[in-house]
Each structure stands twice: as structure tokens, then as C-alpha cells.
């Protein structure tokens, strides 16, 4: 399944979603954190340092909104 956040539909497969951040693309807009405060972690300069990994489905909406907020399209969210 492709990595475009619009493709996300929670629930079919399991209990988690997978997020990953391309640190080469992140320039510190910090909008992911505003949209997903319980998902995304910023360093002291405002860069997204969220480790790649699984996010519980109850945070799926935050994860997807954070990814869609990124002006650099640096965040991928997948089932």
C-alpha cells in the first residue's frame, strides 16, 4: 500500500499504524506537533524527531492530520 496519508483507513489490518519521518525534508515548521501533540516529538529547535514506528489506532487521526499539515511532505503514515 502506498505511503500517501490519504490512503489511510484505520481498522482493517490491525491495531496500529506506522509513521516515518524523512529528516532530510523536515525544516522545522513544527506544524505536525500542533496537529498531533500526542504523536509527534520535536527536538529543541522544532525539528520532528519522532522515531519511526507504530502508533496506536486511537491516535490515527492525530498522526494523519500531522502528516497532512507538513508543508514539506516529510511524514509518511501507513496502515
Amino acid at each position, binding site marked *: 500500500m502506498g505511503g500517501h496519508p490519504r490512503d489511510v483507513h484505520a481498522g482493517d489490518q490491525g491495531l496500529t499504524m506506522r509513521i516515518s519521518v524523512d529528516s532530510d525534508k523536515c*525544516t*522545522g*515548521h*513544527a506544524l505536525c*506537533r*500542533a496537529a498531533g501533540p500526542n504523536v509527534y516529538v*520535536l527536538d*529543541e*529547535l*522544532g525539528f520532528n524527531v519522532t522515531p519511526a514506528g507504530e502508533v496506536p489506532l486511537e491516535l490515527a487521526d492525530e498522526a494523519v*492530520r500531522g502528516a*497532512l*499539515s*507538513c*508543508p*514539506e*511532505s516529510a511524514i509518511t503514515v501507513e496502515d
Partner: protein
Amino acid sequence: MDGAEGRRPTVEFDVFVQHSMAASDEAWRELREGCPVSWTPHNGGHWTLAGYEDVTTAFRDWETFSSERPDPERCAISIAHSPLPVLLPEESDPPRWHGYRRILAELLSPGAVERLRPRVEHWVGHLIDQFVETGCAELAHDLAVPLPSMVTMEWLGWPREEWLPAASTFHEMAKYVPGSPGYAEAGARFGWLAGRIAEEMADRRRHPRDDAMSRIAAHEVDGELLPPEIAASIVLITLGGGVDTTTALTSAALIHLGRHRGDRQRLLADPSLLDSATEEFLRLYPPARTHARTVAHDTEFAGCALRAGDRVLLSEISANRDTQSFPDADRFVIDRFPNRHVSFGVGIHRCPGSHLARLEFKTMITHVLQRLPDFVLDEGAVVEYPNWSMIGGWAAIPVTFTPGTRG
């Protein structure tokens, strides 16, 4: 046109004839729909990128679209022949960019900006207190112009008696068309400001204080202090970036809320809409409407042959109105999502002041809605800046409202 050397679709496009916001918006619509990648012979000759994908691609590709000055006398990031000294870190590419950018990234990080919140709240309250009992105000002069200046000047550690003359230099430069008498006058005042920055920074090296100028003065790259002219340039860009852009955004939003009562009512009824509304104000009314770059090496871009040294104008205002990326792009949609506008730029030169700008803007709009919710715009006395080529704005936003009490 489609020769072996690539296309060079040429249009007669002069960004400096955009004397009103409406004229500017319309000129960009025509160019975007008619010829989104074009060459114009005006203003020294330059490429113009008007579509969202092309503008964002060019902003991110700093190795092709350089921000370094090809000519020391010519501003790299504006198409105008500008008297401005070099503005760092914006007028630089990696690797030297890293060390200059680092200090602004630290000083203006989300956490550092959050610590400024009480000062922003204080100054917004103070400014509104000055007029709230009278029932009338001129919201450019009384709020949108002074607030970003006060916050920026206090943060820098600038002497208070000089806040106004220093900040107004930038307002005048943004307001007037290059080549006009007003612009020349502002340019002359610039010499005074540059001298004062040098004095203040020399003082901070000898006597550091708890302020941003001291942090810049003490900043080291590879174990060495910045040369004085580079440290001064970083202070200068915080003034240039800090005092006029947030003013322009706030002015645009106040005009919009004055003209569109429905949007104002929705914000009054549901203040949680302010976050998405802020991004939508940014998208429709980008304070920095264009930026320039210089082609670093021969390349093909969108089927066109770009040559090393060619100048390129990137249009944030036009990218933000591209219907391929923003459905119903000309309409203000208060809860638009997603909204990946380019008003703070994208790529490495993303505005380092974006977090402070959002804080200042949201605080001003929140206080205006709370304290003069029924304000009425005196439409006949609204005055726009005469220059919308790079930074637009308003010289007068007169309003009346039910008088309130000092906070």
C-alpha cells in the same frame, strides 16, 4: 520556441506595476493560468515561477536555485535593485548557511517563542488600552505596525527610545516603490540604522546582556565568533523579517474581518477556529509575496532552458492560489485542511520567525475580537501600500467600535 536549447516562453510581466492587492492578485492569476513558467525582459530580465509545484520544487532545490549574491551590489532574494546590505542567513547557501541559521533557529525555536508569550500578551494589551476607551482607532498605526516592532526590539535588546525610528525604516522601504523619492529617503535612513546596529553589537561583545543581540554577538561557528559584519547582518534580518511581515498579515486579516462579517462571527462563536483561520489568512494574504533566486548552473526546468546566472522570481502569492493544490483557491475557507501554503517558504530558508509570527498574529486577533468585537471599518479611509511586488500592506485601517475599558 521548442529548439534544442529548450523553450523560453516570454511574456511582458513587470512585478513593479502591481500597485494594489487586487491588481497584484489579478496579474498573478493571468500569469499562472497563461504561462506558469515564463521569462520576462522587465527588471533586468528574469524567469517567473507561478505554479505551486514549480515554486516549492525551486525553493527546496537550493543547489540549483541559489540564494547567494552573484553581484555584491544586488540583493539576491529580491528582484529589485536594493540598497540593502546582505541579509544573512537568507542570502547564503550551505555550507556557510548552517552556522548563520543555527543561532536564529535557537533564538526563535518553538520553546523560545513560547517563553516570549507573556511579553506579546503584555504589549498587545498595552496598545489596545491606549485607544479602547475612545471607540475609534487606526489599527495599522495603533496595533499592527507597533506590536511586532515592540516585541522584536525588546527581544533584541534595542534601546527603547529608538524602537520607532528603527522599525519605521523598514515600513517605509516596504511601502514605497523602488526608485521613488520615499524609497530613497528610507534608504538614506538605512545608513543610520546600520551604524547603530554596529555600535550595539560592539557593545554586546564587551558587555553581554540577557538579550538576543548578545546571543548573536557571542555565537560561534567552528569555535570562532562571527565577523562583526556578519553578526550585524543577522540582527538586520531579524528587524527586516520581524517588523513588517507580521504587520502586513495582521493588517490583511483585520481588513478581511472588517469586510466579511460572517467569518468574524464564526471566529467569535468558536475561537478554536483561529488556528486553521490563521493558516488561511497566511495562504490568501502572504506578507512576502515573492522571493528571488539565481540559477547556479545550466539546467532544464519544466522544459525550459535555465542558464547559470539567470534570475528567477518565485511567487508565494501565486503558488497559494494554484487550484491544483487548493480547491476553491480564491475563497477564504476558515477551516481549510490540509493547507500547505508556502507563505513562510519551504526548504532550508523556511522563515525562522514563523513561530513568533503566528504567536503575535493570533494574540493580536484574539484581543481585537475580545475587546472590539463589533468594530466597523471606515471603508472610505482605508489606505493600501502602493507597492505589492514583494511585501504588501496597509497604511491606514480606521475603525470605530463600542468603547470598552482599559484592561
